[in-house]
């Protein structure tokens, strides 16, 4: 199966005053189409930096990154916007829902930016998929944490992304709700969506096909969970 993400020698250096922070050090990383990958590691290990670079939210300081066959280095902002819009869905730990928009409108928001708004049937289908068919008219303030993250996942799905990048998607949720969100991710993966999830939650990380471990900006481990389960 072909790679949807191919990163070679990826580096990311932040500057804070005179101090240089090496968030990523020559990372080689690849994700196959349809794969479910988790990334674990202690705080400050570069997990989020890697996810942001993979999602073209941040530009790498060095190395190369191909997304769905497109070389991203040298792309201008409008091309990056299009690349993100057409290929990537983001899910954040803090959900980042618009408090004045109801669940349905929050899911619709990316369509406004891609100028495809008004597809009500699709929104209904996604609301149903994330288990919120009867909560569409509720504002974020009227929803539980798990429901808010479902809305955020619905919002990530609306533009038919090839890959979903999730940064600690269960970081603000209790374990039962986390479990449900992960089941939703597994269901999406079964439907063919590639997933890259950064998490602290080892139980959930182990549900992925592959689990990468990051430390000090380097990949220090990669477990093929499929192989592992076969071995057990």
């Amino acid at each position, binding site marked *: 199966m072909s790679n949807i993400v191919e990163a070679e020698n990826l580096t990311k250096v932040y500057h804070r005053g005179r101090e240089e922070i090496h968030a990523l050090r020559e990372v080689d990383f690849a994700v196959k189409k349809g794969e479910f990958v988790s990334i674990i590691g202690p705080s400050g290990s570069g997990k989020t930096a890697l996810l*942001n670079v993979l*999602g073209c*939210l*941040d530009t790498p300081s060095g190395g190369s990154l191909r997304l769905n066959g497109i070389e991203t280095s040298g792309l201008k*902002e*409008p091309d990056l*916007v299009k690349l*993100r*819009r057409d290929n990537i*869905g*983001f899910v*954040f730990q*803090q959900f*980042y829902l*618009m*408090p*004045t*928009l109801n669940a349905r*409108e929050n899911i*619709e*928001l*990316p369509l*406004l*930016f*891609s100028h495809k*708004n008004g597809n009500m049937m699709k929104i209904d289908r996604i609301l149903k998929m994330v288990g919120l068919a009867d909560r569409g008219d509720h504002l974020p303030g009227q929803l539980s944490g798990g429901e808010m993250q479902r809305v955020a996942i619905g*919002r*990530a799905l609306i*533009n038919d992304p090839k890959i979903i990048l999730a940064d600690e998607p269960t970081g603000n949720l209790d374990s039962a709700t986390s479990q449900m969100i992960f089941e939703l991710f597994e269901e999406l993966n079964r439907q063919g969506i590639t997933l890259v999830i950064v998490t602290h939650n080892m139980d959930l990380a182990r549900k992925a096909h592959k689990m990468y471990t990051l430390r000090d900006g380097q990949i220090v481990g990669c477990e093929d969970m499929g192989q592992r389960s076969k071995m057990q």
Partner: protein
Amino acid sequence: MNFPTLAAKNLIRRRGRTVLTVFGVAIAISVLFSLLALNSGYEKELNKEVNSMGVHILAVPKGCPYEAASLIIHGGVIPKYLSALDLDNVTRIPDVELATPMLMHQFLKKDEETGKSTPHIIYGIKMDEMLKLKPWWKVEGRFFDDNETNVMLVGGDLAEKENLSVGQVLPVGPDKEDFTIVGILERTGDQDDQFHFFPLVEAQRVFGKEGKITTIAVKVRDVSRISAVSAEMEKVPDIQVVTMTQIMGTIMNLAGSAKSLLLTVIVIALIISAFGIINTLLMSVNERTREFGMMKAIGASGSDIGKMVLMETVFITISGGVIGTLAALVGSSLIESFVKGLLPYSPAGSLISFSPELVAFTLAFSLVLGLVCGIYPAFISSRLSPMEAIRGGLE
């Protein structure tokens, strides 16, 4: 959902701040609208007032400054006089349809209860000629004949203020001669409402000014000949010529200085208001960096974000513009009385004149204000890199 809905919902989220900003804009726009309305209204009323005199050119004694001409409209007294010879000279000029002599004099009327003296203006006029200049004059009672003695007409406002009625007798002049009110002029809406009118000869006799006149009012056969006639009149040695356009110009100049003061205040108010809007928006943009980062992550471009911020600004200023304009329409009488107190000369009618064009201009101005104020915050927010935006919110 569309961008305007999104922008409106963003504003509703910060209700208190939005309302205060809109209020600030509304005040500035309301004052601006009132001043513009006043500007056109003032000129219109002044024009109407000058035209209602029915006079095209005034001849006054030489040396009398222009400003004195505006005194004449109000019945101010000039201590210089013209003679019957001057009148003859003016009458002989071709294209002069009518030249009528007038004597203006002032006397103090003492209020018996309060003991206060108020100045009253007396116009000595030739009634038959005056009625040719002012055919719209109507009277309760009757007009006097030019050869009658001890009779007077009284302006409508004056009669009401002083509680005067036809048949009443008033003591006038140094010898307190009794004059009978034979008629009260119906209101004309101009300064005539404030005066006493005597037959010219009687006014000259009572005040000891026999043969003297203060003004010659001239009506020209053809309005386009006004400047030619006034040039001819200039040749008469004793007189100085003032056309109504000049009087208007003088008054407009006087009013202009008061108006430029007002305009300065408004410009300052608008600048403060603009900085207020920009500050509010920048604050709001700073608070929302994470939100913008999220929007970029889910597919918004920089211009999408900028467009949204600009739209929010325009909503604020347009709402402020609409509220300000409505407030100015509703509160126009209040504003008018305030402004009348500030201006050196105010025509009698309503000064504020609203027109649809003016409303359109004010609203267009609000739009431009919004665009100008929104450009910088919109630019700032559109330039945020999504990662910096998300991180900026976290740090």
